[in-house]
């Protein structure tokens, strides 16, 4: 029993990582007030190109590099439409997500001649880290040690992103741009540039999340393997209003329920039901949050609505 609990907690870190990474990327676009829903698609693209690079060069480094480049290219496409051509951000996001799903599936079938999933010993997975000192502590070591290195980096990144957004010049200008684009412009800040940077960062982070999925969590690519994680990350961003440390916490909670759901499959509960658990938790969290928010703003809202009605 104890072992099961330890493995659930251990797995929750792996389950949390892709969501954490793509949510951290999305938090940049959140603050820049870019309506970016394309994390899902960018994650999928990253997952595919990670496998592609790793397979052809038989090196995880090349896989990682391929994934990051694909993330950059995907965000360039997004920016071309959303910023340069000023198309609707939401529609552009839908387009990106559909392009990612269709495109990776097509490439999978064409390049590797397989349907469903591509598995090969030539795909090299991400290395794990054996943290010196940690391996001597019994239970903690079982939980925290020897994860793929991205897991640790993602957690460090949560603190780093928090620092960037709240303590650097870029962060301040990012928030100002999202708050009021014209005010920022009047002070000599180029809002388009800021928005572009945020989309770029989001693309890179989401692609890294995808690499973790296909080269860390498992070592294969399967169709639609991002499986809604980009949407969950979007929900988390909105839920915690973009706070990176809040994102870290929520991702871990979500990760815990996801891995718990996996374990529950062993005790005769239909897998369809158990795999609903993390999503039910998300909906519950959204519900609790909105009730709380409703309470705190009810009085202020009334006034505003009265004026709006006119």
């Amino acid at each position, binding site marked *: 029993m104890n072992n099961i609990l330890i493995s659930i907690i251990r797995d929750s870190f792996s389950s949390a990582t892709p969501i954490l990474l793509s949510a951290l990327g999305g938090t940049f676009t959140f603050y820049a007030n870019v309506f970016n829903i394309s994390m899902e698609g960018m994650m999928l693209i990253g997952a595919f190109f990670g496998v592609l690079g790793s397979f052809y060069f038989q090196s995880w480094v090349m896989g990682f590099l391929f994934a990051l480049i694909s993330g950059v290219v995907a965000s360039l496409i997004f920016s071309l439409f959303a910023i340069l051509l000023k198309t609707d951000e939401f529609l552009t996001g839908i387009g990106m997500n559909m392009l990612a799903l269709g495109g990776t599936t097509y490439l999978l079938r064409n390049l590797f001649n397989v349907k469903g999933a591509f598995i090969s010993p030539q795909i090299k997975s991400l290395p794990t880290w054996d943290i010196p000192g940690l391996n001597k502590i019994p239970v903690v070591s079982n939980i925290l040690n020897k994860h793929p290195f991205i897991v640790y980096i993602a957690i460090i990144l949560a603190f780093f992103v928090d620092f960037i957004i709240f*303590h650097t*010049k870029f962060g*301040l*200008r990012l*928030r100002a741009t999202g708050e009021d684009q014209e*005010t920022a412009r009047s*002070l*000599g800040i180029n809002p388009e540039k800021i928005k572009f940077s945020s989309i770029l960062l989001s693309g890179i982070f989401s692609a890294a999340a995808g690499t973790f999925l296909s080269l860390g969590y498992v070592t294969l690519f399967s169709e639609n393997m991002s499986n809604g994680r980009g949407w969950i990350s979007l929900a988390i961003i909105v839920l915690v209003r973009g706070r990176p440390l809040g994102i870290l916490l929520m991702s871990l909670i979500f990760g815990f329920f996801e891995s718990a759901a996996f374990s529950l499959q062993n005790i005769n509960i239909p897998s369809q039901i158990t795999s609903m658990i993390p999503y039910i938790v998300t909906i519950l969290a959204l519900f609790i949050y909105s009730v709380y928010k409703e309470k705190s703003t009810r009085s202020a809202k009334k006034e505003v609505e009265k004026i709006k009605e006119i």
Partner: protein
Amino acid sequence: MLLEMKEITKTFPGVVALDKVSFNLKENEIHALVGENGAGKSTLIKILGGIYKPDSGEIFLNGKKVEFNSPLDAKRHGIAIIHQELMLAENLSIAENIFLGKEFGSPLNLNFHKMVEESKKYLQMLGFEIDPQTKVSKLNVSEKQLVEIAKAISSNAKIIVMDEPTATISEHETQILFEIMKELKEKGISIIFITHKLGEVYQIADRVTVLRDGKLIGTKNIEEISSEELVKMMVGREIKEMFPKYNKVQDEIILEVEDFEVIGYVAPVSFNVKKGEIFGITGLVGCGKSELALGLYGVYRTKFKKFIIDKQPLLELKSPQQALKAGIVLVPEDRKSQGLVLLLDVVQNITLPNCDIFAPSLNIKWKKATETTKKQIKDYNIKVSGEHQKVKNLSGGNQQKVVLAKFLLKKPKVAILVEPTRGIDVGAKIEVYKLINNLANSGIGVILVTSEIPEITGLCDRVMVMHRGKMIEILEKGEITPERILKAGTGLVENV
């Protein structure tokens, strides 16, 4: 001379916004810029602020010719503009707003401590005691203005332009602002102050420049000009041909209210409107005239002692539905967002609020609706390619006529028109005025809420002038002159 703008001309498609206007500003001066809506004040300011480029004309700063290609350019030359719509990021702190774009510290590690300390310094200069880490969204309008001023002095502005800063703040706050303006003046900052309130011009300005219809009327030292002369400079134009007036006021009273209060906006007022009368309500921005109109239409919470419409007393007025039922219609100020569905055609727009007429049972009788619409189009002289033209493609004047047509189909007893001629051209205005006359002559009591003084003098039989949520006086037929209205509306006349 600190600033000279020489013979500035700016045209927009179809309009000459500024016609060879010259303007200058001395050092240590507060210079008031006045004129009616559309006089060209804001265009002039936008040119000074680098938002527009003039078609011709030159700008000199300290005798040197300058050209502004962007707002940032103007800012670099020490010109700060405080727009009516304040340019602040609401969810950032005061300090962050002040130093945005000129932050202290290295890009990777901002020196927030120093920004807060410096902000404190600037805020103290303005006598504003507050923690600079407070979010701007927590401040009220006058406090936000102070943050804007702090922003301006922190970037070494030599000229601060304030676009109607007193329009949205209280009397007390206005006095505080004036103290600050005087101190800034002593510190060597010159201020261009745009206002509609003539009382304020005399209180604070050293010189005043009047614009009218895009032309410079004159610049005067404040001691040299009486308020009567100033009003004349602002208003003077041929009024008779623009305002057709042929309504016949009947003796019968159609609407009478006593101690009618719009809670939180307008102090109790009493007045009556006769059949066939055009009753004006006017005053400056923020005087409460639109709130009073919306109150009469049941949008705001109200209290009253008496509310008699066509001899029927009304016991309560809590919603527009009740107002409509009692026979009051309101033609709203913003026809595009409040009056029309732009993507629907004329028939559909006219049918929409009149479903009780056209759809007595479940389905809409489109044939009847179309016929009625055709008649309305003819009656109100609406220029359309056909009754199924989309409203979006009509001119502003014709859109306004559609709005009037659809409300008047309800056969109201009292029609409240809020700024019915805003944003439409002169020809269409005259047609709307004729329509208003016809309305009155059909036995309706017309309440015309407007800030255009010529409309009042040209059309109204009586007019209520308001100031800061209070009724100042009701002017009778012979007393309606621009001078009287401005004097009452700017608070030069206190309650009579």
